């Protein structure tokens, strides 16, 4: 892959599912095209059921487009499954921690799958747990941790394998606002420090604007209805204006 090539590229991607009751096809994504460059944090915003998670699953290589082309680091994430070993880290909507593993063992999972030297792996896992404020909870099982702590473990698990790309599917949606705000801040700091490319799916406008360098707003079936760039220099007035624009775009869908 060339340096200036986008890390994630969707070209006229379409994804359909057969309805289980035999009522034909359900279109989840329709002619979706976009590009994401290295080091960008892109927030994808849309209403529930607009196809955000389907797009996410295509980038993650868990499902295949019905038509069009999706490439990640210049490769097909579904067909070239093994190429992406250790290259993509995912933080899911739920924490998806293995209940039989301690916090430390959960963070170790990806490193064990990647056959990292056990001592080095444990050191890495402990470092990430500490960075996420979980020192002292290494040997706690998930049921003994709060929702916020569990989600921190899942973030540590994603970062521990040092992926090039981070995919986050509404990771803080089930947390209270204070915890979610803290975690959002930590997440952005960690992504910027490590210069990773991140795709952050959310249905909250403020979250998308807080996290994203760029915000993509989806309409149902998933296609880009609005796109804007944000940065540290974006003024409060501009942010308010963008917020209003996004609300108008989302409301227009009804």
């Amino acid at each position, binding site marked *: 892959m060339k340096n200036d090539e986008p890390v994630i590229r969707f070209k006229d991607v379409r994804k359909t599912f057969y309805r289980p009751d035999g009522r034909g096809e359900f279109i989840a994504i329709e002619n979706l095209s976009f590009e994401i460059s290295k080091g960008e944090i892109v927030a994808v915003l849309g209403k529930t059921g607009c196809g955000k998670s389907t797009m996410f699953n295509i980038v993650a290589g868990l499902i295949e487009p019905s038509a069009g082309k999706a490439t990640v680091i210049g490769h097909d994430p579904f067909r070239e499954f093994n190429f992406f070993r250790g290259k993509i880290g995912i933080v899911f909507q739920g924490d998806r921690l293995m209940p039989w593993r301690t916090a430390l063992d959960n963070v170790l999972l990806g490193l064990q*799958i990647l056959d990292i030297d056990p001592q080095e792996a444990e050191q890495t896992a402990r470092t990430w747990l500490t960075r996420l404020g979980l020192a002292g909870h290494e040997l706690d099982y998930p049921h003994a941790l709060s929702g916020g702590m569990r989600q921190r473990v899942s973030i540590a698990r994603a970062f521990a394998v040092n992926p090039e790309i981070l995919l986050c599917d509404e990771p803080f949606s089930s947390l209270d606002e204070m915890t979610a705000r803290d975690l959002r801040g930590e997440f952005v700091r960690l992504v910027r420090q490590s210069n990773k490319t991140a795709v952050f799916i959310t249905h909250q406008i403020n979250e998308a604007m807080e996290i994203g360098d760029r915000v993509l707003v989806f309409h149902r079936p998933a296609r880009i209805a609005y796109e804007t760039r944000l940065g540290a220099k974006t003024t409060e007035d501009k942010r308010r204006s963008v917020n209003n624009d996004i609300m108008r775009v989302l409301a227009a869908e009804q």
Partner: protein
Amino acid sequence: MMNSRTVHALQAAAGIALLAAGWQILSIIFPHYLFPPLLEIVSRTIEILVTRSLLADVLLTAARIFGGLLGAFILGGFLALTIGRSKAAENFIAPVLTFFQGIPALSWVVFAIIWFHGIEFRVLFIMVMTTLPAFTFQILDAFRSMSKDLFEMTMAFRPSRWSVFRFLIVPTIVPGILTAWKVNLGNAARVVVVAELVGATGGVGYELLRQQQLFDMAGAMAWTMQLVLFVLIVQQAITTLETWVLRYRAVSERAL
């Protein structure tokens, strides 16, 4: 105030004590060749445990139970994972196992006597055939209860098949395996006695047959107690193992 473990132990002891008291009363009312006193049963039970030649019979039966269960577990585990991964395999294998489930244990004993010569192979065959369907279906159920969320999360790391098996499938099916062992242990203990009763020259079943021929109720009870003790000890061992393996599970302070 007593803790819940003590209360539980006392409740269990009370049930057994009531059963023993009832037996003792029957031994007073009826002749001893029908209901021998508890003391005689206990002394005969201990005699078996401390007499090397008699204990060898108990251990032989225990080995047959373990051998049969291990064979059924390995074969059942393989079949369960094969069925779990392939619909065609399920269509092919599941009806056969369901058919086997309908065959009484005694029929397998008759088949084994007709088909095979070696006593040990007969017993092994009977044990495997009678416990195989339960092992397969219980492990299959555990496999199918695997969380789709955890599967997708694991797949996101692009694991090898071995990693998926080691890190996801095994921990998922372990509770089912332990339950299958507990359930099948009781079944196996019953079946092995029938198998030994008609086709063996040693073991608890064979000794029970001898007690019947001698019309010795105390002996029959003492040999039966060997099996009961064996099942209780192994059940307790499995429960202890289960408690340790499943220690990650949250337990509510409020009982149901």
